[in-house]
Structure formats: C-alpha cells, structure tokens
C-alpha cells in the first residue's frame, strides 16, 4: 500500500487520544540522520531543508510550518493540509501554538534534532501542560513497513549491489580512499539513489570503520564498505569487505565465521522472537569460535540496527533489546566484527520480515571480495 497520510494521521490521532495527548508537535531542522526517525518525513514524506514543524491537535486541526520560505513547493507536493512557509520559524510557531486550542499533554517528536531555542519556545507556550515523548508514538506508527517502503528498499538494494560491483571495478592500488568512495557513492546516485550514507576505508589491519581519508590504497589492503543508498527516502544498508590481492586462508576462515553468524541470525528471525534473541544467536557463533571478549565494545556495538529517516524500530540489534519481531519490520543484520588476526571486517545485509521469516533484500551471495591491485 502506498503512503497514505490520512490513514497515518488517523492512527496518530487514536494513539494521541489513548495517551491523553492534546497535541503532537513533530519537528525537524533538516539535519537528517540514518540513525534516527525523522518525525516530519514519517508523517508527511516531506524531507525538510530548514526548521519545520507539524502541529496536530487532537481535534484534527493541523498546520505545517516550513522554512525556508522558498521550499513551499516541495512541501506542498507532500502535504495537502494547511501549511505556511516562512523565514521566521519561531514567530510562526508561536502564532500557531497560541491559535490552536490544546487540551491535555503536548507530545514532542523529533527531540534529537531540537535545538534549545526551539525547545524554549515550545516550553514557554506550553505553559503548565506536560511535555511528553512523541518520538515513541511516531516510531511506533512506522515500525511496520508499508508495501511501497519495502518496494523502495528493494530498489535501493539493487542499487547497492551495483555500487558494490562498481567498487570491485574501480578499487586499485595508488588511488586514495576518498577517490574510491567518490566513485561508488556518485555511481549509486547516478542509478537513482537519493541521499547516500556511506562509510568506506581501508587498511592492512582495520581497527574500525570510518570516513574515507587521504590514505593511498595498497596491495593486500582490506577495504571496508558500508553502502547505504536510498530510494524515495527509504534507506537500505549492505556491508562488504574486499581485499586488494589474494584472500589469505586466515582471512577466508574468519570471514566464513561471520557469514555463518549472519546465517544463524537470519534463521533466528521469526515472528514472536525478540531482537535480543537474534543478537545473542549471532554472538554465540562468534563467541564459540573463541572471540567472546571481542563481542562487546569497543570492538562491537550492535549486530545491526533499524534504518532511520523512517521509523528506527526495531532499534539496535543487541542482546538487551526486547522488541518482539513482527511481520513487515525491516533492519540491517551485520555481524561486523574485529578479529585479532585479521582486523575489523564487514559482513551484512538488510532484511525484511515477510511470511513470518527473514528475507534478505540483496541477491548477491555474502562473500569476501577480491580485486587485482593493478588496473
């Protein structure tokens, strides 16, 4: 089913009513992160450039406040309700909050992007009303991915696979990390990816994944590439490891371990099981191979995560996460791991829960890549 704003708003109003919430203020300042839910995008599919608020009262009264003023045409294409474009966000927010009749609590969504100035404006106008966490509501609304979201994610997965092949085609000695990163990300953009989240680096023994630097690629380098293209705002993520030169027996052995851990995790993803069970299963395989101490920070943080801009649920794939898996959820499963013999390795793919079990979005078999250094 395609995104239906009226249906989302209707569900939102029901949730607000059951939580004694008189109004929800969704906020974005245009600073997007794949690590969190963008409340404005989630409720409207409008990706903000500047400070933007959507105020929805329990009565159904709603108003979208857009900055900068000139971006009204983009907002209008996504939001058919009442809206105003302005270059004075705080003044307009004050006007609207004063105008609307709000009873009960006020929920704020988009807290991770709210600056102090905006929060002070909201607090001063909310008066004695309780300010409550609206992010919980918005994340809950989007945790089950719609058919159009899953379709976009599949298209993004196709782009990521082509991006990976571009990496294999381009990677060579005597090129800088950032040049390789540029080739891959720009290629994925040319294939129709909107925004791209990409971390790419290389070393003979990687300690962690990071942004591309000035480092010149060398023979026997291990390239780490986390490729996350997006289509219509929906991100997917694929994690790859590529060697310049031959894959040593030790590296192959370690990478096979990560593939088995990924497959174990995949098998564990079933309706009714928890995210924590999936993470524990992935860890078990790696711990039993003798790497227990490397299954926690600073070596490893999580075995995957939800993909933001939309709902970040089911959250980080960690043993402590008790979120119950449901049909239609989507997240990246990645047993990315530092191993003392070979360094940090990336291995993972985005999965959706369909038909009660996990389905990978990529068609490419998980394997360590290998390229010749000279091109």
């Amino acid at each position, binding site marked *: 089913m395609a995104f239906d704003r009226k249906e989302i708003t209707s569900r939102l109003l029901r949730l607000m009513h059951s939580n004694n919430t008189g109004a929800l203020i969704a906020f974005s300042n245009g600073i997007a*992160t794949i690590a969190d839910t963008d409340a404005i995008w989630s409720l409207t599919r409008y990706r903000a450039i500047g400070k933007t608020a959507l105020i929805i009262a329990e009565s159904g009264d709603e108003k979208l406040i857009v900055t900068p*003023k000139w971006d009204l045409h983009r907002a209008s294409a996504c939001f058919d309700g009442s809206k105003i474009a302005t270059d004075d966000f705080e003044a307009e927010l004050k006007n609207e909050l004063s105008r609307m009749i709000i009873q009960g609590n006020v929920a704020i969504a988009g807290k991770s992007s709210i600056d102090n100035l905006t929060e002070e404006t909201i607090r001063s106008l909310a008066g004695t009303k309780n300010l409550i966490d609206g992010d919980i509501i918005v994340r809950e609304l989007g945790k089950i991915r719609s058919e159009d979201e899953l379709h976009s994610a599949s298209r993004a997965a196709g782009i990521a696979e082509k991006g990976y092949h571009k990496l294999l085609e381009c990677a060579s000695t005597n090129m800088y990390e950032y040049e390789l990163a540029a080739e891959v990300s720009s290629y994925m953009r040319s294939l*129709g990816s909107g925004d791209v989240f990409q971390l790419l680096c290389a070393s003979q023994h990687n300690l962690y994944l990071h942004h591309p630097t*000035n480092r010149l690629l060398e023979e026997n380098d291990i390239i780490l590439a986390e490729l996350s293209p997006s289509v219509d705002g929906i991100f997917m993520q694929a994690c790859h490891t590529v060697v310049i030169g031959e894959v040593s027996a030790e590296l192959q052995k370690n990478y096979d371990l990560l593939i088995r851990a990924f497959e174990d995790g995949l098998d564990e993803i079933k309706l009714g099981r928890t995210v924590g069970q999936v993470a524990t299963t992935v860890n078990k395989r790696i711990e039993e191979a003798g790497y227990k101490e490397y299954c926690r920070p600073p070596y490893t*943080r999580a075995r995957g995560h939800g993909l933001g801009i939309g709902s970040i649920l089911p959250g980080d794939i960690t043993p402590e996460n008790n979120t119950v898996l449901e049909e239609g959820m989507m997240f990246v499963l990645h047993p990315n791991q530092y191993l003392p013999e070979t360094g940090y390795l990336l291995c993972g793919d985005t999965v959706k829960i369909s038909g009660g079990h996990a389905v990978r979005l990529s068609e490419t078999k998980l394997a360590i890549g290998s390229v010749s250094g000279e091109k």
Partner: protein
Amino acid sequence: MQTLTPVVMRGRAAWDQALLPADEFKLRINSIQQQMKDDQLDTLLVFGSGLGYADLCYVSNYVSSLQWGLAAIPSSGDPILLLGARAGSIEFQRTLTWIRDVRRVSDAGAMTKQVLSDLGSERVGIVGGLDCIPSAIYARVSTAFSKLQTSNQSKKIRKLRRRKSPREIEVIKRAITCARTSRGILLSHEEGVTNYEASTHAELSALKAGASDIRILVNKGDDGDVYPAEEARSHTKNVTAYIGVMYLGYWAEALGTNAAASEVSSLATEAMERLIDSLKIGVSCSELAKIAKVSGYASIPFLSGSLGCGIGLDLAEQPTLRVGSPEILEENDLLSLRLGLVDSKSGPVIESRTVLMGKKGPVLL
C-alpha cells in the same frame, strides 16, 4: 544558502596539516584566551553537533557531523575535547583534531563537571549552546554548570570567525575551485542528460578533488523553483544551479544558469559590477543591497531577497547583504555574492562571486 543536508558527509575526512597546521589553531586559541581574560572567564565551552559544527571546528578542526562534541578552553593552557563518539571510533576522531587531550564521553554531565572542576572554573562562557547542540544533550551537559556563573559568548566567537586568516583563504580557494568546476560540469551538459545525472557528474568531480561534501540545488522546470539534486530529475534545458562545496570544513558557493546571453543577463552582470565597485570597509550592507537593485525584474525566489553573506565554516555567516541589514563591511570579511533576476521571456539569470575585503578594497577570489 540552505540546502538539503545529507545523512553523512560523503567526501574526504582528514586533517590537512600542510594547509591548516596546529599553530593556526594555537593562534586562534590565544586570541580567544585573551578575550576570556578581558571578560574574566575561567573556561569557555564550545559546542558542536550535526546542528552546527562551525564554532567547534574553529577551535579544534573537528567537524562534528555524526557525533556531538564540546571543547573546554581554559583561560590559559591547552583545550580539552570531549566527543560523544562510539568507543570503536575514538582513535579515528583523534586524527581529525590538533587537540591532544580528546576524551570519549560516557556520562556527559559527570565528565563535563570533572573537566570544569579540573580547570578550576567558576565563570563559564558558552558558545553554540542555544543553536548548535540538541537540547536533549545540552540538558545533560548543563547539569555540570547549573550552579556556576554562565554567559552566552557565541556572538564574540562568531565575530572572530568573521575575519579570515590567509590560511583560511587558501583553503576556501580550493573549495571555490571545486565549486566552479562542478558548476561548469552541471551547466555544460547537453540536452538528453537529465539534471539529476548532470548533478552526479558534478558531485563526482568535487569529491574526487578532495571535497568533504557537496550540496546542489537545481531546477526541474522553467519556473525558477529549485530542488535538492537528490530529487530533481528533469532535462537540462535552462538550468538554474546552486553548488555549495565544503573543503576541510570550509564552504564556497557557485551559482549559475545556462541561459543564453540576453538583455537581462547584461543587466545582472552590470549590477554585480556595481555592487563590487561599492564594496568598501565601513559601508552599510543595507545600502549595498540598494545599490545593486535592478528595477523591473523579479528576484529569484530561493535567493530570499539577499545579495549574499559571509561564508566560511558556515554557509551563512556575518554579514548579510540585504535591505534592512544593520551590519557594515569589515576588513577580512569573505563574501559570497549572489544576484539573480527573472525575465519572463529568457528565464532566470544568476551572477555569483566570492570577494575578500582587503585593506585596499575588494579582492575577487
């Protein structure tokens, strides 16, 4: 210029010590510490995050995009950098800053309190607290100084940032080269290539040249409305383009259209020359905006009635050149000038320049 902010910087992340060596930052810290003594401040806390990195980068070279950060500058001695980075990445973050004492934050309030105590702080200045850090994080950090005497020092640091050093100009020149090359690529594509494809070629050029990030706005049709390049997918006829390029944290802009020469394009060029001829230290920015006004033509909506502003670590710094602006030009201001007109027949035209306010007058970069 505001544009869609991507989820991550897609380009190079490195501290280039040849262009911006540690002594460049040491000199900045010396100036700040002198000001702190004048203001009787014990410690200055400079915040940065995805909401705004410029102040923090000015004192540390650290571009806070995915992580938030906080530099604690004592009135004498070296600063301490606290980063909300993941445990596994802190070693990499250390390579991006000249500050030697970099600490990963686990408990923001407790760690800040400890640092303030170690520095013997009673009077604390805050930079970027209102606008450069999410309120949820600030609430945790501010428990450390809730009982101390605090003052907002953002304006003073931003005034220091306004004066560009020769090294900063050198970095910005590289950003300008990237931006202009990308603009040339974007505007020179032949019909049949979509604006979207042309944008990706322009991006590739800048990123391969070592840019840290690139932002593009481009039109879909002939109405003057522009869209982030992530979304624009139309033909390349009558392209209106905005390019912003970040190089080692510093921004430069290039704007343009591929409209054929016309009466309105000549008027825009003349107005830009008039504006540049009028740039003098001490001149009112509001008056400058009036001098460059061209009657009879609408301005381009996304320029928001402005003729430009200062540029540097922020895409929009002081001063702003618009009617009503209270600011005046100062020596070493670096200005990104933009002048656009819409003609109902020939479409929009845009002129853009980057100008350094030298002692003897404006210097075109």
